[in-house]
């Protein structure tokens, strides 16, 4: 019951934060996508969706034909133009980005045929992703798959890294002295002051943690501490919930954001945790691409366990147990 109450509070709290942040976004972001002009007008001619900004629901599009609709980009995007910049000269990171190189959602359920080099976050030719090196004594306490049927909350850096397997967009909204990062899944918000302030002396613990940002040249370095120890690191290292791990109170996350050209955002994360890891985890640079479809709309994707009650609840206990112990390789090669 306590767990249920805690979960309910979490989701209610999250919903409030999301609503508040979206209100801010709609107030302050006339075109946060970095995309073309005229979309507001297009939206007004469409279905009358509320709010402003890019990627509003537009006129109904023709339905893609088959798996290889030529209207859906399958190739690595071109640079798209120089790095957008704000009035103070810093790169403008604002925009909606997908975890691949083609500027749209790509999964096994979306039209296929995407160039392998452009279908994911990893950049061809770069050093490969490595797995964190855990201290032997921490294995049982910190390394275990997400329990079956539960919804791991977002946080730092999972809300971003989990897109390795969830494939959803993130949206960055940058204003002088502040950056918001929103994630379609798991509907998380991260608020990052970039005005040079230091960390608090005694920061409150939260799933996003306390973040402060600073510019190092054209790279925004976001330093985060005070991350709730219930926040599971997902796809921080090997991908998927099956490789999830938790962390200690000493976890320290450093994220680096850069925008080498209009169409691309590069994200790199380093996780330090002397209690859990032998050495800091240093991710490969991960490539995100700017959403290209002007009709692409922000969508809710919440984990609410709405599975058919019969199919969901009458699962063979042995199968569930094997899954939770990581013994059940799911079909299709899933971890």
């Amino acid at each position, binding site marked *: 019951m306590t767990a249920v109450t805690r979960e309910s509070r979490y989701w209610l709290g999250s919903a409030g934060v999301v609503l508040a942040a979206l209100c801010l976004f709609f107030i302050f972001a006339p075109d946060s996508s970095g995309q073309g002009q005229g979309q507001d007008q297009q939206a007004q001619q469409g279905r009358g969706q509320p709010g402003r900004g890019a990627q509003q629901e537009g006129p109904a599009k023709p339905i893609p034909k088959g798996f290889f609709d030529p209207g859906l980009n399958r190739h690595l995007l071109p640079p798209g133009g120089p790095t957008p910049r704000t009035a103070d000269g810093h790169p403008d990171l604002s925009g909606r980005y997908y975890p691949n190189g083609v500027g749209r959602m790509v999964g096994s359920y979306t039209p296929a045929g995407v160039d392998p080099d452009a279908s994911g976050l990893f950049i061809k030719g770069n050093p490969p992703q490595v797995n964190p090196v855990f201290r032997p004594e921490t294995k049982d306490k910190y390394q275990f798959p997400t329990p079956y049927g539960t919804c791991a909350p977002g946080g730092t850096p999972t809300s971003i890294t989990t897109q390795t397997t969830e494939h959803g967009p993130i949206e960055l909204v940058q204003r002088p002295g502040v950056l918001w990062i929103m994630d379609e899944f798991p509907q998380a918000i991260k608020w990052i002051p970039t005005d040079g302030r230091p960390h608090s002396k005694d920061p409150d613990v939260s799933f996003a943690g306390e973040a402060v940002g600073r510019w190092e040249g054209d790279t925004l370095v976001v330093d985060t501490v005070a991350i709730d120890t219930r926040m599971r690191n997902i796809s921080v290292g090997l991908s998927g919930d099956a490789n999830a791990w938790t962390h200690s109170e000493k976890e320290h996350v450093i994220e680096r954001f850069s925008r080498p050209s209009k169409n691309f955002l590069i994200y790199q994360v380093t996780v330090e945790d002397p209690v859990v890891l032998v050495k800091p985890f240093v991710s490969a640079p991960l490539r995100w691409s700017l959403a290209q479809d002007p009709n692409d709309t922000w969508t809710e994707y919440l984990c609410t366990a709405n599975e058919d009650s019969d199919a969901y609840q009458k699962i063979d206990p042995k199968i569930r147990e094997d899954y939770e112990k990581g013994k059940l390789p799911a079909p299709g090669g*899933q971890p």
Partner: protein
Amino acid sequence: MRVKLPGVLMAILIIGAAVPVFAHHGFGVEFDVNNCMDLKGTLTGITWENPHAYFDMDAKDADGNMQSWHLEMVTPNALKRTGSTKQVFLDNIGKPINARVCLAKSSNQHRGAASYLALADGQIRLVGQGVERRSDEQKHF
């Protein structure tokens, strides 16, 4: 300098890029990839909600008796970005539907997960995980 990825790691990366993994459950826990079938019938309903959308269809079983099926799809955000919006399903209520379905492992009949389907226009729509690993050429009715 190009760095060659070890084979296993490359496989993991490719799988991660190609196969959706939902945060709260694995396909193999609830559904049987070795017990899949084609269903032909009539679309009767759509449930558009997170984290899974569902559709309902009526289809005759081997004995000719009409059965009502309740079938899981992926998330609404993925469906709409392939052109399979809620409105598409609403426009096809009462019309023919073919669906490729893997049955639920539970004892309940007429539950399952759809991987792809065709509405009245005949277009193949991807609506679930490609757990059978069928090629695009194999996806037809």
